[in-house]
């Protein structure tokens, strides 16, 4: 299921809802960015879920993800 949200970390990827509270309470949802794989829960604090309040050190906006290092390089 797509949402209209953009990723809170890379600010580019499309976000999908990947989980709902399994007890049926609707207590939370989990979102995942299809581009950078960041995932977060709707009940997490704003310093996790709000791009403006997130620690810039951990943001991936403007980063070419293909340039990330790979501990196990492709053969």
């Amino acid at each position, binding site marked *: 299921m797509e949402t209209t949200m953009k990723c809170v970390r890379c600010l580019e990827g499309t976000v999908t809802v990947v989980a709902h509270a399994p007890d049926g309470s609707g207590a939370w949802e989990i979102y995942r960015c299809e581009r*950078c794989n960041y*995932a977060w829960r709707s009940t997490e604090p704003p310093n996790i879920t709000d791009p403006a309040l997130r620690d810039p050190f951990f943001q991936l906006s403007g980063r070419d993800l293909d340039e990330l290092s790979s501990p196990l390089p492709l053969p």
Partner: protein
Amino acid sequence: MFTDLRSFLEKLEQEGQLVHYRDEVLPEPDIRAILRAAADLGPTGPAVMFHDILGYGDRRLVGNVHGSWANHALMLGMVKTATLREQFQELDRRWDSYPGELRWVDQAPCHEVVLQEGFNLLELLPLFRVNPNDGGFYLSKASVVSKDPDEPASVDTENVGVYRVQVLDAETLAMQGLPFHDIAVHVRKAEARNEPLPVAICLGVAPMLSFVASTPLEYAQSEYKYCAALEGAPMQLTKTTDGYLDVPATAEYVLEGELQPRVRVTEGPFGEFPGSYSGARKQVLIKVKRVTHRRDPIFENLYLGRPWTEIDTLMALNTSIPLYKQISATMPEVKAVNAIYQHGLTVIIATDSRLGGYAKSVAFRAFSTPHGISYVKNVIVVDGDVDPFDLNQVMWAMSTRIRGTQDVIVIPSTPGMPLDPGSDPPGMSCKVILDCTTPVPPEPPMRDVAMVEHVPEAGAYAGILLELQKAQGR
């Protein structure tokens, strides 16, 4: 002794080392905060079972299972007050029983429930964000099983290792394997053939298996046979539902899947064992095809943060013993090895000196063990009559024996542990030797100073004083 997680949890409860948290908690930040608090209770901190996690219904989570020396001692079947030195000696004794016996069982508890499709790992497992800036939700205490594609019949090269696993969505995982991990050999061979690598991710296993799976064993040493040897009882295994991999029969959950060849996906960051985040990386991808679990399963996960936390206790003596065995095999003067600090980034070795300069030779040996090449960065060598697990004694040795001009050695440009913030670029580091031993010939002696004698008579009085203290406290 403990054939599964449940029997160990029962023992912990009897000993006052497991507490039940029954109030409702938020997955974030409550679980992290409570497990941090359990770790901060130190050598007697309890395991914590969570019974009411918002949104997860009756799913149970347990953490800090290996989180204190008391719990560690109970895992070994010792009294919970056993000292670190005593636990080291007990493990040293049992280590030589390798290989232990393996037994395959039918109708394994881990197969009580089989989910072929329609499962969602993010809903099935009561996950929580371990550290605030992790890239997602992690399995931080998963025993990952894989086989050498060239030797599918071999149990010895079948690997069980604890690697960090990020749950990406309902059935997809990203996993970190590092080049010096055994699983890297399996991945490399499978990818050379462009074939998927079958993996089984086992959660909530017997405590000794978590201990052995995070031990730096040699490539062809079987984790299962070590587990049996250390337990003194056969290890009970069963086959995955496709009959290919061997998994612990009593695991709470087994995620059966395939590592996709030549695929890398963005994973991380993750707060790692040095107490710092490792950055986002391109890591291998696993598709989970099937989940099996016990009835009413218990999900076990691990909080790791700034040391000291559960991972520090889990990866402590299981790092010390292999190093001790490997070094003492050719250097019998070595009495004990304390490698409990960050998986052996710093190691304290107690040794007698065969000849002048011998402490440096012992340090070189530590640096050149399979684990030591990348991990062991700082080696502190103390005399054989200093207990390397007693930091008061170690600091005394350092304070009074080091002569800065000749006993502090730095070897630049050596392999390093990529997750160590001091490794720059990641994977490169230096080796440091602090020789805190007393010189022996032909090295000239330290200036003429006589050591104060040990007091062997004191041991008998310790018990008497404790009794007197107890009586007075009434």
